[in-house]
């Protein structure tokens, strides 16, 4: 009886425990959703800010080389997401706008747009991976 009770407790505790353990990504996303970008928060004793990696890239010196590097990175991820059939609608438009901004010597604008495109492309690839692992959970039984 005691053994059965322990097994039941373990079975019940497992999913609950998984839900309670917050990863850095979960905390980051929660803080970002609540406070927007640039908000300071702590995780396991260390301080972080709610910037996406692409936004940090866009904080580099606004010049043609940096803008073009960000656009190149965005295009590479866009191609990767398109290859698996998960390209999002606005990525292409943001890249085109970023390229136009480079042509007009508006490098900060170009970097901001390219960062947005790169972020969306990265998220679309993450979405594909998540779907591959979990799509079946939505099927009624």
């Amino acid at each position, binding site marked *: 009886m005691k053994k059965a009770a322990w097994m039941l407790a373990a079975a019940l505790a497992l999913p609950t425990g998984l839900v309670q353990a917050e990863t850095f990504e979960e905390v980051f996303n929660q803080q970002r959703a609540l406070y927007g970008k640039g908000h300071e928060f702590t995780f396991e004793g260390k301080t972080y800010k709610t910037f996406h990696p692409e936004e940090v890239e866009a904080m580099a010196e606004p010049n043609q080389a940096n803008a073009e590097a960000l656009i190149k990175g965005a295009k590479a991820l866009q191609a990767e997401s398109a290859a698996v059939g998960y390209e*999002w609608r606005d990525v292409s438009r943001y890249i085109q706008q970023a390229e136009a901004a480079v042509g007009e010597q508006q490098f900060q604008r170009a970097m901001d747009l390219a960062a947005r495109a790169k972020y969306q492309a990265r998220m679309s690839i993450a979405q594909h991976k998540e779907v591959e692992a979990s799509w079946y959970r939505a099927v009624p039984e």
Partner: protein
Amino acid sequence: MKTLKTFVLGAGLAALSQLAQAADSGFTLETVDPEADRLALQQYYQKRFPGVPLEEYVNGIYAVDPASREQWDALMEFPPYEFDLEEGQVLFETPFANGKRYADCFDNGGIGIRQNYPYWNSEEGAVKTLEQEINQCREQNGEAPLKWKKGDIAKISAYMAWTSRDKPFDIKIPQDDPRALQAYLDGKKFFYAKRGQLNLSCANCHLDGSRILIRADLPGPTLGQPTHFPVVRSKWGEIGTLHRRYEGCHRDTRSVPLPPQSDEFRKLEYFQTYMSNGLVVNGPGARK
């Protein structure tokens, strides 16, 4: 130590039970069971909308939302697809330049066959849709193919659906060709997979979201959805094909949409129409 072992054993059992649950849902070629999927979907809707007869689902949202039904009944006093239907018949019966007709390309002269589409073509190793074969017929007879989404192809398809009215859908998945089952599984996966910046799957709107407001719209149930296509949509102001709707839905998730009659959309149609097996053809239809 004994307590720890017991705890680990219990946790292992819990994890295994989750895996077993996943396996039951049929998400691999070895475990997928189209008939079980179809019955599970019917049961889902019977629980979701108790009292709605299964055969009513061919009417989409109008089967499950009385207020929308009232407006639709009024609209259907003069069905908006009637002129398209007449034009479709004329197009269907008009000979090509070589003297042959659409009737020469299809079983039974193309009359009363809509309920068998889409089907698995083992020779080509592909899902074939009615619209695809309409265009193939044209090309085989020296005519230019029609555009996929609207216009003449939708009108011809509408006429062919009309000649099949009240015939139950009978989509088959040949057991002697595992590629057919794989195509069904791919279509099923597409239906349940989230896409686009809005992270939406077909199922989010047309399963969980059936009759739940998305802004001012009430998405219809997926059961019975392909039965009434092609449709005149009030939003379009004209008649259009199922794949036009697929493309629009896909774009609405903020994805780069696939083109009509793409391999993925044809597999989606295969899955979705199989789910409606037993329900009757009632195309063409009218929708918001």
